[in-house]
């Protein structure tokens, strides 16, 4: 097998990298792929809790890279989604503990065993970022529609181009009502400013917090708008390149309009 390594990155912290990694990884597995999600945020691990696998950690990515265990010993199999595996980060080390050479070696092995390997990069553009992108075939840049996040995304996009990686963009946490009244950058505004292709648009969704609370992957909630958006992103990655990108919109269904007029809406 010759899989693909995809890094999820953003520069700025707190824009939804980990949620995106977990969701895209889980969705790709639901599409029938063998998927490994790797937490590269050494010292501040979180992908394990987002996926609800924190109780099953024995070994981590640092152990694998530094040859304290085999890759298979560190892979945690998700019992709810077939073919989804996690390699957690170490919580006690710092980001300098990994070498790019070591990461490349493990990445090669991962590629031979999985269709997709999704690397959750830490915030920032230092060593941790380097280690996350060193073996990447593709990159997904996550940003939210605000000035600071888009600025940082621009910086990261530049760094990825310098490594000959052509990244694709996911705009996260879009609030359609705010976009409609002109108080939030639309995805068109973001695309005007950044030189990058669009991979997907994800609306703000309360369900993200709920699914992180419970450790149940977002894409398993069928009524979650964000979950659906991530599933479409996964399908686009998985060969359906022409799948249209849906723009999150203010709900205008007949029933919604009636209930809104009557003030019955939540």
């Amino acid at each position, binding site marked *: 097998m010759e899989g693909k390594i995809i890094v999820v990155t953003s520069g700025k912290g707190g824009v939804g990298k980990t949620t995106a990694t977990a969701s895209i990884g889980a969705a790709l597995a639901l599409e029938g792929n063998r998927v490994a999600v790797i937490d590269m945020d050494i010292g501040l691990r979180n992908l394990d809790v987002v996926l609800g696998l924190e109780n099953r950690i024995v070994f981590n990515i640092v152990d694998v890279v530094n040859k304290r265990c085999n890759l298979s010993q560190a892979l945690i199999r998700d019992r709810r989604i077939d073919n989804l595996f996690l390699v957690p980060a170490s919580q006690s080390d710092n980001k300098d503990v990994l070498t790019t050479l070591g990461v490349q070696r493990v990445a090669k092995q991962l590629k031979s065993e999985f269709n997709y390997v999704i690397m959750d990069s830490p915030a920032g553009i230092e060593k941790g970022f380097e280690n996350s992108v060193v073996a990447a075939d593709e990159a997904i840049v996550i940003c939210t529609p*605000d*000035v600071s996040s*888009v*600025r940082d995304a*621009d*910086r990261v996009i530049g760094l990825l181009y310098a490594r000959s990686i052509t990244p694709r963009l996911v705009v996260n946490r879009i609030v359609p*009502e*705010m*976009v*409609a*009244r*002109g*108080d*939030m*950058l*639309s995805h068109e*505004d973001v695309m*005007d*400013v950044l030189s990058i292709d669009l991979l997907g648009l994800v609306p703000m969704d309360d369900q993200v917090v709920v699914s992180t609370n419970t450790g149940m992957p977002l894409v398993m909630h069928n009524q979650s708008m964000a979950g659906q958006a991530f599933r479409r992103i996964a399908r686009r990655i998985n060969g359906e390149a022409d799948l249209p990108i849906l723009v999150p919109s*203010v709900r205008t269904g007949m029933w919604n309009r009636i209930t*809104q007029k009557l003030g019955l*809406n939540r």
Partner: protein
Amino acid sequence: MRIDSMLNGFMKKFSGKKSSKETAKKRLQFALVYDKLEINEMTLENLQKDIVEVISRYFEIDTKSLQLEVQREHELSALVFNTPILCVKKNRGYSGNNT
């Protein structure tokens, strides 16, 4: 909620106030341009070395008192290189290496 936001947009259109996203986009575009104009110390040093090398083929300059800086005004950036010329070299050639 929705009627409220529509009303908001309406009011903004008539009161002639710019929406906050327009401000955001403008600020962002300027920030990105300025971010890219920022040159790090290493680049500036290397540039200075190269410029000195080229100029030294033609002129004898005082390498101690030269200045290289980026000057910024409103929408323009200029690279300013200041150096006293001591004398013009006579055998200024094309090959560069042995002048």
